[in-house]
């Protein structure tokens, strides 16, 4: 077994589960034995990497107050946007009203005469 192969195995195999060939290589190869020692130190360090810090008695209350505040802020944002929405609706309504021609204007602009001329001319020719 090559050093490279053994180290590949060491990286994925849990402690104590090494195949016989790997164990034999470790007996003979000092560098790989040293690598394994370092890997075990690293694994141990990763296992111990933990900070035991517990929440104080008011943690839940504090976070819940922040959450409630955020919800309120959302509510207030909606309330603050209400006049803007109202103003926008009024402006759009006014524009729609002004842009709509009155019935008398529609009659004046009526293309009926032209259309009649055109129909008569077309049929006549």
């Amino acid at each position, binding site marked *: 077994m090559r050093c490279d192969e053994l180290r590949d195995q060491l990286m994925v195999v849990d402690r104590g589960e090494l195949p016989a060939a790997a164990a034999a290589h470790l007996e003979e190869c000092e560098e790989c034995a040293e690598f394994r020692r370092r890997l075990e130190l690293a694994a141990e360090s990763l296992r111990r990497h933990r900070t035991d*810090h517990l929440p104080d008695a008011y943690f839940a209350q504090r976070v819940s107050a922040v959450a409630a505040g955020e919800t309120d802020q959302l509510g207030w944002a909606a309330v603050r946007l209400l006049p803007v929405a109202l103003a926008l609706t009024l402006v759009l309504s006014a524009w729609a009203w002004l842009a709509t021609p009155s019935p008398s204007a529609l009659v004046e602009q009526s293309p009926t005469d032209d259309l009649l001329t055109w129909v008569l001319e077309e049929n006549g020719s």
Partner: protein
Amino acid sequence: MDVESAIGSESEEARLIAACRQGDPDAFADLIRLHERRVFRLAGRFFRQPDQIEEVAQETFLTVWTKLHTYRAEAPFEHWLTRVCLNCCYARLRKERPADELAAERLAAPTSDPDARLEVEGLLRTLAPEDRFVLLLLYGEGWSVNEIAERLGWSRPKVKVRAHRARKKLRRLLEGAPA
């Protein structure tokens, strides 16, 4: 805990979740109290400073508050919460400047350790946060690739790639270090 009280606490949890969805902050505080220790413990795996742990725990619960409508009760709430917490830890680790973490950890490192152990710990601190995160789940929590994928809500190939990369970097680090 006997079966009856286990069922009782489950239905209590379901009641709290329903109330939280209606925007009840008192129910939310009670829901936090049920799970805060678990969240602190998990965050303590990745962060050394108490204020970092507390901030990431707060972020986890605020995410729960805003995303609770996406929680489907098919899986236990605890699993969903773990997923939210792990993803908050990951996002925070990625954002943090490595130098800050380094300085903080140097202060927190115990001084009675033998040289070799301290040296390896120092090496681990030079890893990218993404790699350290995966290695802490693999070696620290002792989770398999499948377990990590399931608990984080990441795809199996994604975890496999990340785990492979992190292990490779760790190996290079250990090989390159002076004996």
